[in-house]
């Protein structure tokens, strides 16, 4: 077979091998970029009036001062929200969430956690997420929704009063927003470590297969 011709069968075979469709890859990296901007500008905002007895090192904050941090935060939020919304709509519409993230069963999670801790968790078929992955991915999507809702509530506590009400009041929304950020950072660390441990999964998120 000449290397420059492709039969229909080959086309199908290759297509089936695509692990991450293009829309997932694009939105994934846009989200990663937007999240980094939101975290670093959020730390700048936090430093202006810390909730706890610590501040974030200046070098890891964006914007130079509170005003700059706020400008970044309220600019990158559009990228984060539009991209996130597109992702949720496409994820539900294409059936990707139903197919790849669910079901999540307690016994499945327990089994895979045990397998992971004993290094028996295989990654032979990257098109199927194991239960630990499903739980983490579904969980972080929920946290993403939560941080946007608390953020919008704090941004417009009068116009979006019902959003603030959902979390109690303004100060509690602020704490929830902060803890969501902490959860996203924890996820980021684990997520990046695991992706580096299984490099072909990282490759799939970049070139698709």
């Amino acid at each position, binding site marked *: 077979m000449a*290397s*420059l011709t*492709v039969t229909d069968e080959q*086309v199908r075979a*290759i297509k089936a091998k*695509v692990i991450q469709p*293009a829309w997932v*890859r694009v939105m994934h*990296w*846009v989200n*990663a*970029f937007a999240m*980094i901007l939101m975290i*670093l500008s959020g730390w700048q*905002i*936090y430093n*202006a*009036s810390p*909730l706890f007895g610590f501040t974030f090192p*200046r*070098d*890891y*904050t*964006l*914007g*130079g001062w*509170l*005003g*700059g941090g*706020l*400008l*970044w935060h*309220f*600019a990158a939020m*559009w*990228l984060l929200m539009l991209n996130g919304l597109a992702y949720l709509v496409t994820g539900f519409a294409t059936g990707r969430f139903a197919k790849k993230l669910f079901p999540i069963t307690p016994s499945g999670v327990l089994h895979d956690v045990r397998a992971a801790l004993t290094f028996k968790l295989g990654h032979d078929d990257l098109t199927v997420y194991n239960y630990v992955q499903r739980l983490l991915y579904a969980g972080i999507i929920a946290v993403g929704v939560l941080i946007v809702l608390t953020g919008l509530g704090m941004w*417009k*506590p*009068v*116009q979006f*009063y019902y959003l603030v009400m959902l979390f109690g*009041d*303004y*100060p509690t929304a*602020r704490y929830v927003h902060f803890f969501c950020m902490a959860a996203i950072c924890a996820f980021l660390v684990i997520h990046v470590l695991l992706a580096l441990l299984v490099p072909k999964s990282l490759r799939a998120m*970049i*070139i*698709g*297969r």
Partner: protein
Amino acid sequence: MAKRSFLIPGVDKRLLIKDAIKTMPDFTRRRFIAGGASLGALTLLTGCDVVDSSSADTLLAQVSKFNDAVQAFIFNPDALAPTFPESAITKPFPFNAYYDLDDAPDVNGTDWKLEVRGLVDNKKSWTLDELYKLPQVSQITRHICVEGWSAIGSWTGTPLRDFLKLIGADTRAKYVWFQCADKDGYNSPLDMRSALHPQTQMTFKYANEILPRAYGFPMKIRVPTKLGFKNPKYVVSMEVTNEYKGGYWEDQGYNSFSGS
């Protein structure tokens, strides 16, 4: 068709990888993290060449303007800021400014007059005694600072919209611009719709006592639908105007609408 380019139609694989790697922030690029500095990755996002910090700043300023428009659009003139019972009041209510209390304007109430300028029928200045005679209302609302902290306080005074009506202000004008007694001339523009909001108040009392120096004696503008820096203290004049005259913090980069 070569197999290589087939998987991602029309895209060179190597270039794609290179681009994707570029979207991942490089933590060794200190300038990216340190602030309004050059952002290589932003080039990817906007398609324009962000080479120096000033173009990043320009972009951010444009988005902030866009955010002004968005906030004006979602602003509901009938939506009231939540009110609280007296027991919820934060004690002590924080003093907050970019200077110490000792350096706060010390206004002499008998000499002070509120100047009224711009698009109004009656430009007469008002003494404190005259203002105190206007009907007053009280509100217990949450003051939210741009820094993120908030505190609940009790303010009493005349609804600004009643005063604007009284002086024959052109309420089709865009702004009411406040000037304050601060040494370096604090000022702040308030969009007319927020100025006409039922809870926007010319405040003369805090917790039923004459407004103390710390909270803006003799007059503060309380706008519970705005962040704290848009609630000017030590006010000496108001101007009804169509011109955007900027403000102390607004000019430094805080979002101008900064509505709640």
